[in-house]
Structures are given as C-alpha cells and as structure tokens.
C-alpha cells in the first residue's frame, strides 16, 4: 500500500551508494545498528525506496521484510519522496486547540493533496506532525526549515504565494 505512493522511479547515484556503503560498514557491528543506518540512509536519499532497503538488507545480511517492517513502523521514515518544499503542520494539542486543524484543511484545499502526499510537480509535500515544541507560537507550520507561527487561515495563502 505505502509503496504505491512512490510514483517517481528510483534514481540513485553512484555517489549516494558509496556514502550508504560507508555508513553501513561504519555501524554494521554495533548493537541495534538498523535504526541509525536507516536514518542516515534517509539523509542521503531523502527517502527510503525499496531499492535502498534492499541494499541495506543485503549488506547487513538480514531479511528485507525485517528492514521493511522497521521502515513502515516509524512515522519519520518515508517510502516515497518529499517535495522540494516540505510543509508540515503541527497537529499537537496546543496547536490543535488554537485551530491548526483549519490551517491543515486549507492547505489540503489549496494544494489538492492529502497529508503524506506530494504535488504532481514535486514542488510541495504535506504532512501533519505532532508537536515541534514551539507551543508559544501556536498554531505553527514549517516549510523546510522555516517556522511560521501564530497562523490564521488567511496567512496560508500569503505564505504559499511566497513559494510560487
């Protein structure tokens, strides 16, 4: 199911593979190495397509289903690519009681995608997250590393226009 979302074919470069192999050989013999390796692999590729999971399984000599099981368990791992602009709306309690649900719905409407999806041009991806800890600025959303706080629904249009 989750894999179907990845409509973009996988293009890994030799350089990326070299970095991944270095990460694997660095951590391979540590106890509980799979998580740190997956985290670094996601840093390298931006996401964890089945091809990357296969390399990790082969190199660590563990079954692919074990790797896949761990990848799909944790919200932070993604099996599909993210947009150039990664939008994340905080739906933690402090933001929710201050109306972040409306902010999220407005983005769904504007971008025409649901949470966890990416626009067809690969520009925006939208996710709901649980508390980034900037509760003093609630409701909050982030676009890549920029934080936007004390939002109203009307701010959404203005902010999106900045990226168009």
């Amino acid at each position, binding site marked *: 199911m989750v894999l179907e979302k990845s409509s973009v074919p996988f293009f890994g470069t030799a350089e990326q593979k070299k970095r991944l192999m270095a990460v694997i050989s660095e951590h391979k013999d540590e106890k509980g190495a799979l998580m740190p390796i997956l985290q670094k692999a996601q840093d390298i590729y931006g996401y964890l397509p089945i091809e990357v999971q296969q390399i990790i399984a082969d190199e660590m000599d563990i079954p692919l289903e074990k790797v896949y099981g761990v990848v799909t*368990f944790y*919200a*932070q791992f993604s099996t599909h690519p993210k947009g150039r602009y990664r939008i994340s709306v905080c739906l933690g309690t402090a933001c929710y009681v201050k109306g972040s649900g409306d902010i999220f719905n407005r983005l769904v409407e504007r971008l025409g995608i649901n949470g966890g999806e990416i626009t067809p041009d690969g520009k925006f991806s939208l996710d709901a997250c649980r508390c980034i800890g*900037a*509760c*003093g*600025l609630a409701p909050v959303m982030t676009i890549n590393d920029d934080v936007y706080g004390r939002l109203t629904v009307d701010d959404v249009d203005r902010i999106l226009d900045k990226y168009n």
Partner: protein
Amino acid sequence: MIRTIEQLNAVKEKSAEVVSTRVNKIDRGYKDVLVCGGTGCTSSGSAKLIKILEDEIKKNGIEEKINIVKTGCFGLCVLGPIMMVYPEGTFYSKVEAGQIPQIVESHLKNGVPVKEFLYSETVNGDEIGTLDDTSFYKKQHRVALRNCGVINPEHIEEYIARDGYQAIYKVLTSMTPDDVIQTLLDSGLRGRGGGGFPTGLKWKFAKASVNEQKYVCCNADEGDPGAFMDRSVLEGDPHAVIEAMEIAGFAIGANQGYIYVRAEYPIAVERLEIAIKQAEEEGLLGDDIFGTGFSFHIGLRLGAGAFVCGEETALMTSIEGNRGEPRPRPPFPAVKGLFEKPTILNNVETYANVCQIILNGAQWFAGMGTEKSKGTKVFALGGKIRNTGLVEVPMGTTLREVIEEIGGGIPNGKKFKAAQTGGPSGGCIPPEHLDVPIDYDNLIFIGSMMGSGGLIVMDEDNCMVDIAKFFLDFTVDESCGKCTACRIGTKRLYEILTKITEGKGTLEDLDKLEELCYYIKENALCGLGQTAPNPVLSTLRYFRDEYIAHVVDKRCPAGVCKELLTIRILPEKCKGCSLCSRKCPVNAISGKIGSPYVVDHSKCLKCGVCMANCKFNAIVMD
C-alpha cells in the same frame, strides 16, 4: 583532563567568576547578554538576533565589554525571542531585529536600558525589575530547570561552575551503591515520565539483579503533543542528565548508558552530542572517572517518530533496532530489559533532579511537595492561556495558581472550561477541581494523571467531544497494532465519537463508549492502550451535558462540530425580501414578504446559498 577534585574545583572557581555576573549579579566591568537558544525562541528568530547583536556590538566597538551567552529556555516562550542583560537582570521580550541597534547603543554602551522594549510587567515608572519580580516567576521553584536560561549549555565549564560533576565525585568517593539508592528512596523522588514509580525502588530492583552487563537508559522520547519539558532540560542543561546517568550506573552496577531522544528535537540532539564529547574530553565520562576505576559510557539513539516508544519496553525494543512494539511484563526491565540484560529507564526530568538530591540531601528534597509526591514538577503550559511556556512549581501547588497566577489566565475575556494533563493518556479537569493540589495521586483521583507534564488549557470555544475525538485520532494513529484491544478498540471508540460529532449518535452510544473504554483499559498490553480511553472517560464524566447536547439536541454548544451547526435567519436583520427563499434549492425557507423568514431545519442542507445571497447579512450558521 580532570582527574582529581582539586582540578575540578580549580575549573569551578575560575568559571564561577565568569557566571557570577548573571548568577549573583556582580558587576565585573562587563555585561552578559543572555539570548534564549531554545526551540521556542529559535523558532521566533533568536539565532538571527544573535548575529545582528554581534554586528552592532562590533560597530559600537564594545566587544571587550560584552559577553553574549546563548542559553537554554527561560520558560516564557510566548514572549520570545527573549533577551536578558546582566548584571542588572533586565528583561527584553519579543525582541525584534530593528530594536537591536538602539538596545546596543543605549543600554550596552551607555548603560541606559531602553524601557519601551522591556517586558512591560518589569517596568514600574522609573523602577526596572527583573524576571524574578514577574508573576510568571514569583511562585516558581526551579530544581530541574535550575541551569536552564542561566548557563551556556555548550560550555561544560559553566555547568561545573554550578556544582557540576560534584555529585558523581561525592558518590564515587564517599558512598556505596546502597547509600545512593537509600538517598533516593528517602528523597521520595518518583518517575517524572508520568507513572510516578519511586525511582529509588526501580534502582534497587536493578541492583538486585545479578548480571555482569546492565544498562542505564534515559527516556527522552517526549511524545505527548504539547509537552516540551524534557526538551528544555536537554537543550538547557544536558550535563545534568549525563551526570545523573553516571550515578545511576554506579548504583546499579552498569557501565553503559543510552539516551533515546526524539529526532524531532534537533537542537537537543546537537547539545547532547556536544555535552557527551566535552565530558569525555575532560575525563568526566568514559573510563576510570576521577581515577576511581568506575567507567561509564553513553550512546545516543534517535527515535523515529513513534509515540509508543515512550513506553519502556517499546523503547528498548526500538534501541535494539526493531519495530518499537512493547513486550509483556514480567519480566520487568530491571530483570530482563535492553538486549535481555537488567536495565533501568528513567525520564529526563527524573534524572535532572538526581544530582541535586545527592548534593543537598534527601531531606532537602523531601521537604518540598506533598505527603506522597515530593519535590517539584515542570509543566509545559499551552493552549488558551496568556503565558505559554515552561513552569516549575513545588508539588501541591493548585491548578488555579498555575493557570491564573503563573499562566496569567485565559486571553480574550473567555471563560475557562478545562485543563488537560497527561496528554493522550490523561484527562480533562473541569473548573470545579481547579483548587486541587497537584500531585500524582490527586490527579488520578479526579480522573486524569500527571503524565510527563503537558498542561493544555481550553476555553468555552473548545468542544470537549471534539477534544476526545482528537486524542483518539492520535491514539489510533500511534497504536502499534500488536494487541487487539488497542488496535481495534481505539478505532471503534474513534468511530463512535465521530458519529456523535456528526449528530448521528444515540444515548445508547454513550453507554457503549463507556463499556468499551473499560474493556480496553483492562485488556490492552501496554500503558498506551490502557490509558487511551482516559480522554473519553474524563470528558464523559465531567462534560456529559456536552455529549447529551450532541446526541439529543443535535447541537454543539461550543460551535465546533460542523455537521451540527444550523442556519438561522436573524429576525432583527431580515427585511423579508424573499430572495433566500427563492434561491434555496430545497425550499427550506419560507415566510411572508415584509416580515422575517424562517428556516425549516428538517429540509435544510446547510449548503450556504442563502447566506451568500442575503444582502443584509441576516443569515448565520452557528
């Protein structure tokens, strides 16, 4: 390298003088400018401010006279970015880039604070107060947060200046493991992650397990939405956690520790990495600490966004590199934990108290709080409250004091409806219980729980059924799926709540909800599942009238549940022009020309065509 107490004290003396400008407000001919570098203030732009501050200071040629310190969280996040100037202790709030040149020239160079940029509560005519004079800080008592917003967490010397690594020295040279455990037992310290299990007892069990390899873990996977106590400790005082883990290692006989920290906390992760490296370089972490033969190492493990990993057995399964699913207990971790070895797991805030207890004694700590809950508790105040931020108060303080005095009350003249503690595992506390002294047992008695310390305030505009649904949405999403009671039970709860918020619920549904809640509580495998029904149960208990309004009257009193809103024509504004009646696609509006029209709710589709066409704004949806 620090190998002896003399060397440690030499560093302490030297750096104590450096921090005395801000700690003791001693004028030593230069100023300390403290800028909050916690997540809250960084999000509101404090990193950029530091850059501008540096440029301006250079421009004014006063680099020699100014010491910029990037600290951890001051607590008053809503006023960020925050900047303090010492030795005076003046408090600039919501600092903007454009204000910096004036602050630098007038205050830092010429010694005249810029009153209009100071936090208004600290300015009284010509008198300028400090942070301690504000109503937000007056009632607070900082133990776990004592160094947050005071020291630069990236400089180990500043931690040493504040008695850092004295506790581990004391433990290694003058105490036995049993002494340490007894001190903790006497102090009455209970786990700050939510459960409230006595910390000393946990350590005692782990010590009693015989095994050559044991582990000390730190739970920094703070997953409650709206809670950020642990993050602030890690960002503001990471060494306090490291030192406490060493003490735990000595007490139970472990030489390896792991800190499991949320990857969503990049600043905390970075500060921890720096702190571990500095402690290792100084010989205060690693092999043969203080030449006593005791060795202790710490590894960092990053979480990957799974709430259930805050549960102790799930956390250990995750460190082992697996899906973070909980395991049945017994065996308890103290017998068989991480990698099947005896393990203790404590929360960040629990560790943050340990060194202070060792240095000041069990009696000092037991002197604070209530009969069964000792010490202080940190709360993350959020939601509909004026002073959003981090507060630390003695156990036994009432919710009313925290919300109305420290938190400054509800903004916009709205009425308080409920305080939510304990996150998705907790409950909503109604106004009639505001005067209950906060401690572990009282909160459970009134149907909530301490949890890790998130405290979200809700006002009359929040619908309690919607809030219960919000938490169930969270639990459904975060349920690991291992046990049926939680995997399917929470989903069913969510569906019934959705039905109610859509106006399709019946009174029978309320009974079904309650029955299912108790079933899940009894049968779920881990703490996440067992406590998942709490938000439903507590809202049913205290806000049943709101549920009844949704079910019987098909009405949402707070005006939140969209499906329950109705279209009304305001008779005082309606001119009786009949336009709405003609535009309505289902003929739901009728009346006589010249007098106010009315909506037939049995026919109305709430499409809003009438509202869009009315020229007199006489039609509302509420």
